[in-house]
């Protein structure tokens, strides 16, 4: 077999030969072809990702394990991660999305954590096209079909539409789990003499070489090149969750790894490499679903709902009994040994003989070049005069509310069980965060998921920073201190120097914001090659940030104002239209430069917002983001079912103030008896009183007057 048939480049092949000290056999080449694919090895992004800050005072486990874990006190930790499943969802929307949900749940389970919630970042193409409709319907059904059955509530997410995703929908699945700090299962603790046990479903030919598939641009005729799609079974996953947690409770697990991309091989070699040991795998012991599977098929199969456990040999009987109680397969398929070798045996024959760390770490840097896009400065070419002031801002608002990206998403989340496990205090709907109570404590976890691809396209560095900042602002307004972040970087091919430069810049911007706002990256995922011959996606970093609210009293919700409350605007009154949803609506595209990241303003806002919430200085709060102030006001009116009368001297051109985006800004409804304290809290930070809460329309003097029921109709009718 030629190395290129296995998916290896010449550079990689040479490196492999050098490591082995000989030529690899066919099985070894096929295995390394997958293990050194982009999806498995992160070869194109390892260096770039090292720019993220990963340490912080709440971080218990950072990148490098199955997921990250943050400390929330009371002996508890929250494990979380986001992962993409883009290419499979493009080809088989239901199963692609379903198995994406299943896969990330197992990553959380692998730490010994009980998965308690999911979120999804969904990026669809042109709204209204039948292709978008088919993809989005299938993907949403798949997320619901799997998540509901497995008993993990889907509590929020981010949904965004843009033509660039027409043939490349994105599905980023986020999961969070709760774990006792002293019960965390690591993948670094395997020791010689222990045995590796496969728990869960039988192994078939599902998704063979799917990991490599994810690293290749989708060919024109995907039907012809479609590999075996992974099929998910949420019922078995539910049994797997209960079995593994029961084993963990009884202290029977030394180390655990989920079988995702490249299944058995990646999970077992990872444990070996991280624990600094060797592994001998016995493929003739693997329970199979199909006849005549070859060793490399067994090695790379992506059959779902399987976990690899490392246990003490004397505990095998006890482990088997529990696993069989849950009607799952339990088979000893490997042994942990001294050294660092990774050996695959099929009966008496040695089929592959590699070094454990070579498999996971040895992939050479492909050395892609970076080059600033030549049209970058052209993208910034935008003056306000280029966009004449609209004659009907009210009509613009109605149209903006009805766009699929900003409009009501209940058609999506009413298909998700967002309440199972009875922890959901604030679920999906007309708010910016999801909030879960933590049973047995007074604490609550707040979750935010964000993306801003248009701004990343215009200015990668600023867009990256804004993406992270936007998520942190949402958490701050509801009273949650950010503890840590996970992220999924969805980008086109890194082999194009301009695109690789953009990726690097986006990460730099994100990292700067993480550093300044003390929000380390604890886990993440990268999905590259999101492009076809007809186009490539916008640079789309997706972030998931987890924050902590000390007690329910400190939670500041949205949609809770009352008549007579004073509505305040906090934040600098000079946002920009560049890269905004409004600009997209009015011009069909985005141009100009988003605001620069202002770290001191962000830090200041964060602290004041947290204190505003914990001191109970406002009744309702909402961050300003997509669609700007006007959309935030409209959404708040809709949530409350009542309006405001606003009369202010608008300091900039009207549409800039009402629809501009960027920078830390929020609206707060403050009861009259707290106004003095509120003003004191925000003294020194730009703010102004906008309106009184009264009436049943959104009334902005000399600008627009729309009854709240019309706003709601537009928002719900998208």
């Amino acid at each position: 077999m030629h190395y290129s048939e296995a998916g290896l480049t010449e550079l990689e092949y040479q490196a492999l030969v050098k490591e082995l000290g000989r030529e690899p056999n066919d099985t070894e080449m096929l295995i390394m072809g997958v293990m050194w694919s982009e999806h498995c090895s992160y070869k194109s992004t390892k260096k770039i990702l090292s720019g993220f800050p990963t340490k912080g005072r709440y971080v218990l486990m950072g990148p490098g394990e199955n997921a990250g874990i943050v400390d929330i006190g009371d002996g508890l930790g929250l494990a979380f991660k986001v992962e993409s499943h883009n290419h499979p969802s493009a080809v088989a929307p239901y199963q692609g999305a379903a198995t994406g949900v299943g896969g990330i749940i197992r990553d959380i389970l692998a730490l010994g954590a009980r998965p308690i919630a999911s979120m999804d970042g969904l990026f669809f193409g042109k709204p209204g096209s039948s292709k978008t409709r088919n993809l989005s319907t299938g993907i949403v059904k798949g997320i619901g079909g799997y998540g509901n059955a497995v008993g993990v509530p889907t509590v929020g997410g981010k949904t965004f539409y843009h033509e660039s995703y027409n043939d490349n929908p994105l599905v980023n699945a986020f999961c969070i789990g709760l774990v006792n700090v002293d019960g965390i299962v690591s993948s670094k603790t395997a020791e010689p003499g222990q045995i590796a046990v496969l728990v869960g479903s039988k192994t078939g030919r599902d998704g063979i070489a799917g990991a490599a598939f994810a690293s290749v641009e989708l060919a024109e005729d995907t039907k012809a090149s479609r590999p075996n799609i992974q099929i998910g079974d949420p019922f078995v996953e539910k049994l797997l969750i209960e079995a593994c947690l029961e084993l963990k409770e009884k202290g029977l697990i030394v180390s655990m790894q989920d079988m995702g991309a490249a299944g058995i091989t990646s999970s077992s070699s990872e444990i070996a490499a991280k624990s600094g040991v060797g592994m001998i795998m016995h493929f003739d012991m693997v329970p199979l679903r199909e006849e005549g599977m070859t060793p490399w098929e067994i090695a790379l199969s992506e059959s779902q709902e399987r976990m690899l456990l490392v246990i003490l040999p004397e505990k095998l009987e006890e482990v088997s009994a529990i696993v069989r109680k849950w009607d799952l397969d339990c088979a000893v398929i490997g042994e942990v040994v001294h050294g660092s070798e990774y050996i695959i045996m099929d009966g008496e024959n040695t089929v592959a003989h590699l070094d454990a760390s070579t498999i996971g770490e040895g992939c050479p840097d492909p050395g892609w070049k970076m080059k600033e896009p030549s049209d970058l400065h052209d993208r910034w070419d935008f003056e306000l005069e280029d966009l004449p002031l609209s004659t009907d801002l009210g009509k613009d608002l109605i149209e903006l509310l009805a766009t699929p990206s900003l409009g009501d998403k209940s058609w999506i989340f009413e298909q998700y069980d967002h309440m199972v496990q009875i922890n959901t205090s604030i679920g999906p709907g007309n708010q910016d965060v999801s909030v879960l109570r933590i049973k047995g404590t007074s604490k609550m976890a707040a979750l935010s998921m964000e993306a801003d691809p248009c701004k990343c396209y215009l200015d990668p560095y600023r867009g990256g920073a804004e993406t992270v900042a936007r998520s942190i602002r949402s958490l701050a307004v509801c009273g949650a201190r950010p503890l840590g972040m996970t992220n999924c970087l969805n980008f086109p091919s890194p082999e194009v120097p301009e695109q690789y430069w953009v990726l690097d810049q986006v990460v730099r911007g994100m990292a700067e914001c993480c550093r300044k706002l003390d929000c380390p990256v604890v886990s993440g995922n990268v999905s590259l090659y999101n492009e076809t011959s007809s186009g490539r996606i916008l640079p789309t970093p997706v972030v998931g940030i987890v924050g902590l609210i000390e007690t329910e009293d400190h939670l500041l919700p949205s949609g809770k104002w009352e008549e007579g409350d004073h509505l305040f605007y906090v934040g600098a009154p000079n946002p920009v239209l560049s890269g905004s949803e409004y600009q997209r609506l009015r011009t069909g595209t985005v141009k100009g430069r988003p605001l620069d990241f202002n770290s001191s303003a962000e830090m200041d806002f964060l602290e004041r917002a947290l204190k505003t919430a914990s001191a109970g200085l406002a009744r309702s709060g909402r961050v300003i983001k997509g669609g700007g102030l006007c959309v935030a006001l409209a959404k708040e009116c809709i949530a409350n079912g009542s309006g405001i009368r606003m009369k202010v001297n608008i300091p900039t051109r009207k549409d800039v103030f009402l629809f501009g985006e960027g920078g830390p800004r929020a609206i707060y409804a403050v009861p009259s008896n707290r106004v003095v304290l509120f003003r004191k809290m925000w003294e020194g930070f730009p703010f102004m009183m906008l309106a009184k809460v009264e009436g049943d329309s959104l009334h902005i003097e000399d600008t627009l007057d729309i009854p709240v029921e019309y706003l709601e109709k537009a928002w719900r009718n998208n």
Partner: protein
Amino acid sequence: MKTSVIIFPGSNCDRDVIHAVQEITGEPVAPVWHKEDTLCPDTDLVILPGGFSYGDYLRCGAMASTSPIMKAVRDHASSGRLLLGICNGFQVLTESRLLPGSLLSNKTLTFICKRCYIKVERTDTPFTSLYNEGQVVQFPIAHHEGLYFLPPGELRELEDNGQVVFRYCSPDGEVSPDFNPNGALNNIAGVKNRKGNILGLMPHPERASESVLGGTDGALMWRSIIKWLEKEGA
């Protein structure tokens, strides 16, 4: 009061129900695995919880209804003791013929998760004695197969016998198709057997038992049960 909560492979809401009942009543609640032959000793109340037993494969609740533990559950019910089926649990009860009817796919052919207004029609049951007759409460629903069905003759009989305990309604208590989320015949959300010791409902009272979750109308159900048991000298 002693409660046994049955766990089938794929049940999801067992832990939720255990938590809610314990929080509200402070009484012992124990999980019982579906392969057991007996319930916990002196069980007063058996709950079949929500979820996706057997993945909802074949028909919802069909395979669970043939589980070994169901014999003990039937004996418990035929002795007049209390049996409550929530959502998937209701489906198990209809498949077991412990309650009349069948739950078909929602008319929208989608899963629906949202809070609904429910009218309490019978307050003379052990499960609803603390509600007011005609009271409108809010319970969440979360199901794909909640369309309650009976052939016309049997449906008439069910209504004539006053076996309908809960109906979907408007916030003002109006029972109309506009406020029927899944197409259930006659807006039926929950029914009891003739004797009144078995209740099945599609909405989830355990999800509406604590204010942090958005409502406490469900808490009255657990309190009703305890009050009834005290009166009966259980």
